[in-house]
C-alpha cells in the first residue's frame, strides 16, 4: 500500500517537451505528449477509478475500471493505456461508464472476503475505495461458487504477509518486482480464474528470489501484501519525510507514525535519490532504533575493568570534559583526538571537528571515511578539483556503457542498483571488474558484456592496461583532451601509458584477466557512447587506492567521458553520510569544503567565526592515532557513532591501542565493542530521534527529521555542544539549522544551503551557491572545478601483501544486502533470518585441496591473526581467492586484516590479505573466536 499521504496519478510522468491540449469532462488541460488520459485527468484533479494502475508502474490495462468515453470514438478505452491526443474530448463520468465499472467491481468483490472492518488495510485500501467510488451495493453472483477465500496465508517473510485470499491479481506486485526492483521473483501462475501470484516456483516468499525490497507491498492495492507492523499496530495517522540511516544512496522515506511510534517506513515518491523505491534495510530494518539493547542513561567508570555506573548527563559531561583537560594538561594538546562516523549527520560531524579544533586546540580529528573512501577524496580532487562523484544517480539512465569496478551495487547500494538495472534492461552495456562474480554479472535480463575477474590488488594494472589500449589503438577523444585537460600532464601521461609494461598482454597473467578481454572492454568503454564508471571500496581499500581513483579519472578524461549526463566517475559511498562527513572538515588536514588547514586565508575565516587561533598543521589520521597511542604520545579519544574495535583493520592492534589510552569517551546508541574500552559512555540518538542533514553519494543534501523524541534525552549535536560548553568553549546553538547556517557562511560550496531551502525544494546537490542556487546535479560541465583536468602517472606497484607458502590465498571482504557494516543496527532486526553468520566463500578447488566441505568450520590465518568461521563452497570466487563479510563481532573478520594502507591517505587495505585456510578438526567447537574484551592483551606489534 502506498503512503497515506501520497497522490497517485495512475501512470508515470512523460518527459516530452511537446504539449498536448485536450478537454476532460469539459475542462481544458495541457500535458506532455505521451501522457495517459488517466494521468491528465489526475493532473486536473479528476480521479478516474482504477485498480491495476499506479504511477510507479507502466500502464497495464487489465482491471477495466478506468474506462472512459472519447467523443467521436467507439467503445470504452482504458484511460491508463490511452495516450492523450490534441483536441480530444474525454468523459470520465457517464451513466454507461458507471454501469460498466460497477459490474467490474461486482466481479472483483465476488471473490474477495468481506471483512473490511477487521482487515489491516481498512482505511487505506484501494479496493475498498473503488467499491465506494463506483457505488457498489450488491454482489449478484453470491459467494458460494468457486473462489480463493480459503487460500493459505504466507507468513514466511519476517516483515510482510502474503494473503492470496485478498488478491485481485492486478499484477501490480509482479510488475513492481520487474520494473522497479528488477528481480523478477514474482509471476502470475495459471490462467483466467485460476490465476494466482506466485513467488518463485509457487513456493513461499522466503524460498523465492525475493529480496524483500518492499516494492510489491507498496504496489499492492489491497491487504494481500501487507507489512506485519501495520497488521500489528494499525494504520498510521501522520507521516514525516526523512532520510534513511543506512547506505550512501540516501533514500528519502516517509516515516508513518502513530504518535511517537513508527508504524512503517514508506519510500518517498518525491525522493530524488530513490523515486519511491527502497531496499530491505531502509524499508523494514528500522526496529533497532527501539531495541531493548539501547543504552538510555549516561554511564561512567574509572577503569575499563570496572563495571559501568549510571550517571546524570551533567556528571557524565563533566567527567568527559575533565578527562580531556587532564590529559591535555599532562601530555599536551596533541594527546587527544576525535573520531566521527559516517552515520552522523553533517551538523554532528561539523561540531565534533569544531570541538577538536576550537575547544581542544588540536587537528586530531578524523572520520570513518578514512577507512573507506578517503582515496576518493584525494584522487578526484587531484584530477578534477573536488572530492566527490561527478553525477547524480539519474544520470545512469543516459549511459550507454556502465563500468562497475570493485562495487557490488545489488548488495551494497540496492536502490541505485535497481535504477542501473533498468538502464541495462533498456540495452546499456555492462563491464564488471571484480574478483567475484557478483550478481550483476548475470541476473534476470542482464548479462555483463565483460566480467574482468581482476585478482585482488591488481586494479591499477587493469586500468592502466585499458588506458594503454585506448591510447595505442587511437581511441583518445583528442578534442576533449585538448580543450579540457592540462596539455603537459597529458603528454607526460601518454608517454607513460604507452610503455609496453602497461599493455594488457604484459599484465594479463599478473592480474588474472585475459588480455583480449581487457582490450575489448577498453574499446567498449571508449567507443560505446556515454560511458560511466561506478566504483566502491574494491577500488579504494588498497595500498594503491588513490592511484586507482586517479587511473579511472585518467581513463574518463582520455575518452571524454566527463561533464555531461550519462558519463562520469562516481564513488558509491558505503554509509549514508560518507560524502557529508568528508565535506564537513572531518579530515585532520582539511577544513570544510576540502580546504587545507595550512591555507591562511581559509583558516582566518574560521578563526574569525570561531574566535580562536587554529593550528596550521595537519592532525593525526585514525591509523596514526592508534600508532601514537601505542608509542605513548596519544592518550585520549572521543568516538561518536563509530565502532573502531570492530570495523578497523587488525583488531588486535586497534584493541591494544585502545587499551593504551588513558581516557576514552564513546557516544553511541548501543554498547558497542569500542565502548568496552571507554570510561564515559554518552547515549546517542538514532536517525529517527534528531534533526540534521545527510549528504549522499551524489552530493545530495537531504533533511533528517526528528520523528520521535530522543530516547536518551539528547540529540547527538546537543551532547557535543554540552561537552564543548563544559570544556569552556561555548556552543550556543538552539537548532541544527543554525549549525548549517554556520557551515554555509564558511564553505563556498555550501553557501546557498539552508534548512529553509531544503524545506522548500526537498534537497540540493552541492555546489549550491549563487552560481547554482538549486545545486549541481552534474559537475565539471564546460570546465573542471580545478580549471583543466589533470592527468597523473599511475604506476602499478604490487602490494606488499603477497601470497606465499605460508599464506597462499588472498582474502577479500565485502558485505551482503541484508546486513550493514559491522551489523550494529541490522543484527538487531529480523534481517538475521537471511544472514546470521559470516561465511568464508572458497572455490571448490581450494576447498578440496584442504579437505574442506561446505559448512565446515575453518580457520583463516594471516600474519595479523586468526579467526574461525564456516565455509561456503562456491565458484563465485576464483581459485586462490577467498571472501567473507564482517557483519558479526563473533567472527572478528578484521582480526586477520592488516594495517597495510593506501599510500596517500592511510585507507586500510581491507581488500587484500594473504591467508591460509584450514579445516578445524572434526567435531571441534570453535573456541578461539575473537572476543575483543578478553582475548587480546596489549603490545600487539
Amino acid at each position: 500500500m502506498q503512503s497515506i499521504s501520497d497522490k497517485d496519478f495512475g501512470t508515470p510522468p512523460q518527459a516530452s517537451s511537446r504539449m498536448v491540449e485536450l478537454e476532460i469532462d469539459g475542462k481544458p488541460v495541457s500535458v506532455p505528449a505521451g501522457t495517459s488520459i488517466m494521468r491528465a485527468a489526475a493532473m486536473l484533479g479528476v480521479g478516474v477509478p482504477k485498480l491495476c494502475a499506479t504511477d510507479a508502474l507502466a500502464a497495464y490495462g487489465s482491471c477495466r475500471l478506468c474506462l472512459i468515453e472519447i467523443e467521436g470514438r467507439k467503445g470504452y478505452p482504458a484511460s491508463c493505456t490511452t495516450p492523450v491526443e490534441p483536441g480530444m474530448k474525454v468523459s470520465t463520468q457517464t451513466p454507461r461508464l458507471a454501469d460498466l465499472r460497477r459490474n467490474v467491481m461486482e466481479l472483483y468483490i465476488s471473490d474477495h472476503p468481506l471483512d473490511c472492518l477487521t482487515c489491516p488495510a481498512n482505511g487505506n485500501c484501494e479496493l475498498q475505495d473503488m467499491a465506494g467510488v463506483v457505488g457498489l451495493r450488491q454482489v449478484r453472483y453470491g459467494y458460494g461458487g468457486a473462489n480463493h477465500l480459503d487460500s493459505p496465508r504466507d507468513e514466511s517473510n519476517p516483515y510482510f504477509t502474503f494473503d492470496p485470499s485478498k488478491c485481485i491479481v492486478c499484477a501490480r506486485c509482479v510488475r513492481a518486482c520487474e520494473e522497479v526492483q528488477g528481480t523478477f521473483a514474482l509471476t502470475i501462475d495459471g490462467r483466467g480464474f485460476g490465476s494466482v501470484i506466485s513467488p518463485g516456483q509457487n513456493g513461499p516468499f522466503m524460498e523465492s528470489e525475493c529480496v524483500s525490497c518492499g516494492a510489491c507491498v507498496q504496489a499492492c492495492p489491497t491487504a494481500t501484501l501487507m507489512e506485519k507492523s501495520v497488521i500489528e499496530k494499525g494504520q498510521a495517522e501522520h507521516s514525516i519525510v526523512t532520510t534513511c540511516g543506512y547506505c550512501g544512496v540516501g533514500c528519502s522515506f516517509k516515516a508513518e507514525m502513530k504518535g511517537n511510534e513508527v508504524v512503517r517506513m514508506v519510500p518517498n515518491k518525491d525522493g530524488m535519490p530513490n523515486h519511491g523505491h527502497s531496499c530491505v534495510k531502509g524499508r523494514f530494518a528500522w526496529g533497532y532504533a527501539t531495541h531493548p539493547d539501547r543504552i538510555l542513561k549516561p554511564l561512567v567508570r574509572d577503569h575499563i575493568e570496572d563495571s559501568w555506573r549510571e550517571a546524570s548527563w551533567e556528571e557524565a559531561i563533566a567527567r568527559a570534559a575533565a578527562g580531556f583537560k587532564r590529559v591535555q594538561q599532562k601530555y599536551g594538546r596533541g594527546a587527544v583526538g576525535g573520531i566521527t562516523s559516517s552515520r552522523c549527520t553533517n551538523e554532528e560531524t561539523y561540531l565534533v571537528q569544531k570541538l577538536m579544533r576550537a575547544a581542544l586546540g588540536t587537528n586530531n580529528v578524523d572520520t570513518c571515511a578514512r577507512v573507506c573512501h578517503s582515496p576518493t577524496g584525494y584522487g578526484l580532487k587531484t584530477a578534477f578539483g573536488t572530492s566527490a562523484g561527478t553525477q547524480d544517480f539519474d544520470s545512469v539512465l543516459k549511459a550507454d556503457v556502465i563500468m562497475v569496478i570493485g562495487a557490488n551495487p545489488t548488495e551494497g547500494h540496492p536502490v541505485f542498483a535497481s535504477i542501473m538495472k533498468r538502464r541495462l534492461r533498456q540495452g546499456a552495456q555492462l563491464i564488471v571488474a571484480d574478483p567475484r562474480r557478483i550478481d550483476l554479472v548475470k541476473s534476470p535480463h542482464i548479462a555483463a558484456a565483460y566480467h574482468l575477474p581482476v585478482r585482488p590488488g591488481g586494479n591499477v594494472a587493469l586500468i592502466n592496461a585499458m588506458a594503454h589500449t585506448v591510447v595505442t589503438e587511437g581511441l583518445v577523444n583528442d578534442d576533449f583532451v585538448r580543450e579540457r585537460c592540462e596539455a603537459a600532464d597529458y603528454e607526460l601521461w601518454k608517454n607513460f601509458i604507452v610503455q609496453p609494461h602497461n599493455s594488457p598482454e604484459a599484465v594479463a597473467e599478473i592480474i588474472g584477466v585475459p588480455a583480449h578481454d581487457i582490450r575489448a572492454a577498453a574499446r567498449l568503454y571508449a567507443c560505446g557512447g556515454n560511458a560511466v564508471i561506478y566504483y566502491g571500496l574494491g577500488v579504494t581499500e588498497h595500498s594503491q587506492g588513490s592511484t586507482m581513483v586517479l587511473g579511472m579519472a585518467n581513463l574518463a578524461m582520455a575518452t571524454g567521458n566527463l561533464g555531461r549526463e550519462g558519463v562520469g566517475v562516481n564513488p558509491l559511498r558505503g554509509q549514508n553520510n560518507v560524502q557529508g562527513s568528508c565535506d564537513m572538515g572531518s579530515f585532520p588536514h582539511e577544513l570544510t569544503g576540502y580546504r587545507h588547514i595550512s591555507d591562511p586565508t581559509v583558516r582566518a575565516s574560521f578563526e574569525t567565526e570561531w574566535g580562536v587561533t587554529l593550528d596550521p598543521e595537519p592532525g593525526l589520521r585514525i591509523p596514526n592515532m592508534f600508532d601514537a597511542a601505542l608509542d605513548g604520545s596519544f592518550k585520549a579519544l572521543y568516538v561518536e557513532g563509530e565502532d573502531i574495535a570492530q570495523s578497523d583493520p587488525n583488531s588486535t592492534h586497534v584493541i591494544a591501542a585502545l587499551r593504551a589510552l588513558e581516557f576514552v569517551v564513546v557516544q553511541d546508541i548501543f554498547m558497542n565493542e569500542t565502548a568496552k574500552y571507554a570510561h564515559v559512555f554518552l547515549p546517542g540518538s538514532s536517525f529517527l530521534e534528531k534533526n540534521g542533514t545527510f549528504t549522499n553519494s551524489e552530493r545530495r543534501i537531504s533533511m533528517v527529521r526528528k520523528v520521535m523524541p530522543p530516547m536518551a534525552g539528547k540529540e547527538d549535536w546537543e551532547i557535543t555542544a554540552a561537552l564543548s560548553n563544559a570544556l569552556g568553549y561555548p556552543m550556543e546553538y538552539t537548532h541544527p539549522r543554525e549549525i548549517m547556517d554556520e557551515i554555509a557562511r564558511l564553505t563556498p560550496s555550501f553557501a546557498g544551503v539552508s534548512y529553509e531551502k531544503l524545506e522548500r525544494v526537498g534537497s540540493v546537490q552541492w555546489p549550491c551557491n549563487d552560481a547554482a542556487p538549486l545545486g549541481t546535479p552534474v559537475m565539471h560541465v564546460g570546465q573542471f572545478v580545478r580549471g583543466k583536468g589533470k592527468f597523473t602517472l599511475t604506476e602499478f606497484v604490487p602490494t606488499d601483501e603477497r601470497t606465499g607458502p605460508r599464506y597462499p590465498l588472498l582474502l577479500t571482504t565485502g558485505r551482503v544486502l541484508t546486513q550493514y557494516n559491522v551489523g550494529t543496527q541490522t543484527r538487531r532486526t529480523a534481517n538475521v533470518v537471511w544472514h546470521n553468520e559470516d561465511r568464508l566463500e572458497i572455490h571448490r578447488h581450494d576447498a578440496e585441496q584442504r579437505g574442506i566441505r561446505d559448512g565446515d568450520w575453518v580457520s583463516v590465518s594471516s600474519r595479523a591473526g586468526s579467526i574461525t568461521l564456516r565455509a561456503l563452497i562456491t565458484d563465485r570466487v576464483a581459485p586462490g581467492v577467498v571472501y567473507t563479510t564482517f557483519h558479526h563481532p563473533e567472527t572478528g573478520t578484521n582480526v586477520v586484516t592488516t594495517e597495510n594502507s593506501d599510500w596517500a591517505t592511510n585507507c586500510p587495505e581491507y581488500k587484500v590479505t594473504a591467508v591460509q585456510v584450514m579445516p578445524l578438526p572434526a567435531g571441534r567447537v570453535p573456541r578461539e573466536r575473537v572476543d575483543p574484551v578478553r582475548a587480546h592483551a596489549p603490545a600487539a606489534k
Partner: protein
Amino acid sequence: MEIQHLVKMANQIGDFFAPYPDRGEVIRSIATHLRNAWEPRMRRQIIEYVNRSGGPDLKPAVRDAVLTLEVRSAQSGDAPGDD
C-alpha cells in the same frame, strides 16, 4: 610510532611519484605530500631517523625529500599544560 612503519609509508609515497622524469619534481612532490598529510610528530620522527642514521631504509628520493622538511608546529611535543 614505529619508525619502520613510517619508513614503509614514506617509501609508498615515493613509489607513487617515482615515474615522474624530473627528479627535483619528485622530491618536491614527496615533501609536499608529507607536509600536507603527516602530522608533525610523524614528520619529526622521520626527520630524526634520517638525521640520526642517514635513512638507509628510505628510497633515495624519499630521503632527499625528508631532508627538505621542517616541522613548523610542535603540537605533539607541547609541554604539559601548554594549552
